[in-house]
């Protein structure tokens, strides 16, 4: 009996320990995000205070209000930046997913000459640090006359994302048994129908997560965007944050407020799609 009681006590202690550890980990992970939200609503004095003021004394939405105000008086062209970000991220994600699906499917299903070399080549492009590309890209785009356009950024982000989406989606199509597409073809599907009615729905969650990944990369990218964009015509939100820096001062509160505006849609999108990321959807397809 004593052994049982000891074991039970040990178990509940371990449970408590896990709870505390996880809470601490979550607090640590969430702190930067929470700090941005809090900083967006407190006066600059408090933000810069040393030692830090942990609990804000007063909260106000002043930064958000002036952000949408007159440009030059704390106002920033939020809508224009937001629109640019949205157009560039959505378009580049859609294209990257389209190419990623075709490429990933080909790598997963077909045998062709130079397959592994090509795959390796795609992966190697990821080893180049993005910032190293900024100068060559700037020169090329300047010559082509596409600096400061949506097109330039879309092109850049598609190129950045495609290797990764191909790699991810290849993995997801590999998990869909080949037999299923064959069974569908015998059931009367064309090769195309078999893809859309059977293989695509099963790889869907994986494709969605590659989509989130590609979207967030484009949405948050700063280094290249800051070089390639010049004006309100194409500046994205991350580049827009720089509007809060002037020669001698940085408006941290305004910057944090804009960051909140930037985080919100990305967070919402992730929440929406996350529901569909049910793993193990292919279980029960094959074998007993």
């Amino acid at each position, binding site marked *: 009996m004593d052994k049982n009681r000891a074991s039970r006590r040990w178990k509940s202690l371990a449970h408590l320990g896990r709870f505390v550890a996880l809470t601490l980990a979550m607090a640590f992970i969430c702190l930067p995000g929470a700090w941005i939200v809090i900083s967006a609503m407190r006066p600059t004095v408090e933000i810069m205070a040393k030692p830090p003021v942990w609990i804000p004394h007063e909260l106000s939405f002043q930064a958000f209000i002036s952000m949408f105000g007159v440009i030059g008086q704390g106002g920033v062209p939020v809508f224009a930046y937001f629109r640019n970000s949205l157009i560039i991220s959505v378009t580049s994600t859609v294209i990257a997913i389209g190419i990623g699906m075709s490429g990933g499917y080909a790598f997963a299903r077909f045998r062709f000459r130079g397959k592994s070399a090509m795959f390796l080549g795609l992966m190697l492009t990821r080893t180049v640090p993005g910032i190293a590309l900024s100068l060559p890209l700037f020169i090329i785009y300047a010559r082509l006359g596409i600096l400061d356009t949506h097109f330039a950024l879309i092109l850049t982000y598609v190129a950045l994302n495609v290797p990764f989406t191909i790699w991810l989606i290849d993995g997801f199509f590999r998990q869909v048994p080949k037999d299923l597409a064959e069974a569908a073809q015998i059931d009367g599907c064309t090769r195309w129908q078999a893809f859309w009615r059977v293989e695509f729905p099963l790889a869907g969650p994986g494709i969605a997560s590659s989509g989130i990944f590609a979207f967030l990369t484009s949405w948050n990218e700063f280094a290249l965007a800051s070089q390639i964009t010049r004006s309100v015509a194409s500046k994205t939100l991350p580049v827009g944050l720089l509007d809060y820096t002037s020669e001698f001062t940085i408006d941290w509160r305004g910057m944090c407020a804009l960051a909140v505006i930037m985080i919100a849609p990305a967070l919402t999108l992730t929440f929406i799609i996350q529901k569909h990321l049910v793993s193990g959807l292919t279980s029960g397809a094959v074998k*007993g």
Partner: protein
Amino acid sequence: MATVALRKLTKRYGPIDVVRGIDLDIADREFIALVGPSGCGKSTTLRMIAGLEDISDGEVLIGGEVVNDLPPRARNISMVFQSYALYPHMSVRENMGFSLTIAKRPKEEIARRVAEAAAILHLEPLLDRRPSQLSGGQRQRVAMGRAIVRQPEVFLFDEPLSNLDAKLRNEMRTEIKKLHAKVQATVIYVTHDQIEAMTLADRIVIMRDGHIEQVGTPDDAFRRPATRFVAGFIGSPPMNLVEASIADGEIVFDSGDRLPIPAPYGKSVKAGQRIVFGLRPDDLYPSGHGLNTGHADNVHERSLKVNLTEPLGNETLVFLDFAGRDWVSRMLSPRPLAIGASIPMTFDLSHAHLFDNATGAALAREEA
């Protein structure tokens, strides 16, 4: 309903011939089993018939028409996969009705035909479940149901029972046989299990290394194996096959042991010829414990040492020492035997088989 014919059917992967020009005629409503060890090309043959694999050379005819270049959907076939290949994102009902949905049949017709197939296979209570919620045997039945609903001219089965446990496999085997009687379609059934092939098929096709070793009824394959390979492949436990020479009008094993030449082969052997002597465990038994105790003229008796016994209840497999190796014998109405003891054994030579050692082909037999 349809006939199926293969004409010099060949499949090459680069320099390797997986299927080497096989010819086969399958009658309407016939149940044919393709059987052989793994890698013999049986599954590839089936996949070429299905249209899932390109044909390197030769022709496949279904219902008298060459279908080489038709896609699978235009061949009017159904296939049951070894892995079942059920669509995991659809319910059992949707899985079974999928082919009709694709063919844009009216909803009432789909519902009716799915219900009919479900009734045949006792699947009614499972129609709204997902494949992941089914047991192996149930998935197997759904896979068959999906094949039936399509009402094809030819059913193709690719090792459909090999993922099931032994008991379930026996049950499903019976179900498949009943199913064939009900749906009256041509069936091509691939298996590596000779018992499945023997019990199910009208004719079995024994394949090895991409070619056909023998085509015949299960009885043919068992009683009149055309080659040494077939003799060793069909039957469980397998036939005792031992190399020997013909000398002095007798069979002389390499160990020096001798047996008389079986009467049906009296004229087909030559002195000095290298042969393989084959005798089924059923035709080698402890004296008084066999099936064919009648014809005394073709039996040969000698005393052999018992190495091992495997009691199976109604019979016992006895492993004996003879001609320098282990021979298996089947003892009916068994009695306990002492390991190491010598017991009188009967060789029923009227059922012995002789094969040419070089070609593996059966020697000509003169039936009494």
